[in-house]
């Protein structure tokens, strides 16, 4: 499916009215303020221009007065436009490659539908797009678009995670060989593991940088680690399936022995293949700070 066939349908306006989250309410708030705030937030979330939205126009006179410069409809429309612009911009910062791939119109439609389905739940703009990859998956069968959304979210998701003290190769080497099988290793909090159907990291960069995008690569099961570099930026690295599943299991807290056994099974790797790779993995992973002390 091409991006032009991206499945998009506007929701019915009525369905865009946010579900009331009763648990968030402060029972002591003045009733008249609550009514005003609920209405205002609902108005500015709606997809239709206020001047053409009969439901909003019916509700406005109870709350909003014309000002010398602006009619009541003009006033609320200013906020409605700003709501979508602001959040679309924030999401585009996080999913710039996805936005470029879809093009302006489809991106904006996607954002509008996403925000209608999942209104921002809290103050944290960094997590605004947490649900977007799953939402994209419900909107299109295009595997590249779906993969791109997941890959971009991995970078956003890791951005503000805690820093942890890297485990040194020397510390790892000092572990009694007899105890290695039961050793529990911690993985850098800001490390994300992404399984893709396409090797898209270079395409992501090209799209984000707005340079001529490379051709879509051939489909190929791909394993990516997104992790913090030494300047505390984020970098990506393609890894083997065995490495990917080992890191996945370590992250879950499995002891090293069990993690390696399970990863070999997940990846279809032989014992010899695993043993041959182990030395290089742990040398690199400690050097790159992927493994950290449990402090």
């Amino acid at each position: 499916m091409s991006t032009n066939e991206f499945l998009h349908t506007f929701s019915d306006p009525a369905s865009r009215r946010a579900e009331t989250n009763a648990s968030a309410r402060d029972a002591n708030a003045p009733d008249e303020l609550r009514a005003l705030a609920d209405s205002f937030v609902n108005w500015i979330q709606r997809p239709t221009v206020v001047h053409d939205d009969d439901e909003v126009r019916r509700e406005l006179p109870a709350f909003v007065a014309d000002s010398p410069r602006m009619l009541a409809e003009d006033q609320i429309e200013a906020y409605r436009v700003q709501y979508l612009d602001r959040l679309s911009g924030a999401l585009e910062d996080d999913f710039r490659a996805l936005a470029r791939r879809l093009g302006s119109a489809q991106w904006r439609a996607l954002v509008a539908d996403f925000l209608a389905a999942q209104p921002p739940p809290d103050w944290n703009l960094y997590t605004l797009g947490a649900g977007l990859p799953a939402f994209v998956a419900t909107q299109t069968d295009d595997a590249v678009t779906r993969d791109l959304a997941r890959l971009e979210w991995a970078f956003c998701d890791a951005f503000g995670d805690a820093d942890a003290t890297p485990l040194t190769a020397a510390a790892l080497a000092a572990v009694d060989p007899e105890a290695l099988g039961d050793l529990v290793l911690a993985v850098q909090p800001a490390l994300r593991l992404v399984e893709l159907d396409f090797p898209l990291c270079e395409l992501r960069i090209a799209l984000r940088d707005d340079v001529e995008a490379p051709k879509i690569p051939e489909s190929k099961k791909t394993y990516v680690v997104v992790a913090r570099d030494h300047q505390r930026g984020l970098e990506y690295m393609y890894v083997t399936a065995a490495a990917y599943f080992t890191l996945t299991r370590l992250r879950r807290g499995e002891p090293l022995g069990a993690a390696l056994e399970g990863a070999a099974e997940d990846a279809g790797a032989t014992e010899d293949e695993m043993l041959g790779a182990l030395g290089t993995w742990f040398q690199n992973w400690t050097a790159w700070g992927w493994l950290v002390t449990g402090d």
Partner: protein
Amino acid sequence: MSFRKQHGVPDLGIGIGFRAPHRAAILESPELPENAAGLAAVDWFEVISENYLGDGGRPLATLDRLSTNYPVIPHGVSLNLGGTDRLNTDHLRRLRRLVDRLDAPWFSDHLCFTAAHGVEVHDLLPLPCTEKVADWVADRIRAVCDAIGRPFLLENPSSYVSWRADAMPEWEFLSRIAERADCGLLFDVNNVFVAATNHGFDPRRYIDGIDPERVVQIHLAGHSERPIRGRPKDAAGARPSASTSEFAGRGDAGDGGPTSTGAPGFFLFDTHSRPVADVVWSLYRRTIARTGPVTTLIEWDEEIPAFPVVAAEAATARVARQEATLSSVGTATKEHLSANSVQTPGELV
């Protein structure tokens, strides 16, 4: 005793909002270049609190480097002080951690609500100016101050909406809340002008209507004009220019000029995307004449130019602040001398 003296808040001088495009220019220069007058380009920086509430990574590493060389003040946009949802305890816990990390002499947020029924709109929505709402906001500010443990400043918002429930002008509303919550004010002069133009009141009444002793910090920024969808443009199609208005052209906000401008068909929007308008500089001088030389910040958040351009705005603010302070001291001294009273310049601040 003034709020500033009571809480021992310092005058930090002239700052700018720390924004990502200027990261390298600021962090790679341990000391920023002086301006033509030989003064430091920037004395301090303000950061958006919510950008630094994570647990680690580049944001906090950047913040630590910045705060090594400069005072840094956290300015929030999402406390939802006027909201009807409960205050977010996780947000407050993270904000406390940030304020402590910076050892900030104060923190600030806006007089507005940002969420309702669990939906966060990430915008600063104006409140109806009523007694009951003033009490509600003041209670929430007190709760926030208890949680954070530092002096708090409340900022007046830009506004494009007129509530039927409004029972008093915004400056009275702001003042009542500040008094009841015993907080300071972050006085945004551009927001005053934008609101005055959109709602048709005299911005000088706003400035003259607040308690100058509560003003701890001032914001200055640029605004833009946006077309109004529902109301046709005036017949001539003239595009208003607030910065070249009759008001601004008279040079000083105290000379009786008209209060705001703008032809029908446009409203003012607080975009922070342009230089500070001449008319806002005039209002700033008027404010400083009342408050004395308080900490001042230049905000520039969209279409952000190279750092020297923003630093030049800061330099302009420094000169304006100095001139307005000297002017007010001179005026006050004359008045007091004529009344045979004795007052030190410091008491005028």
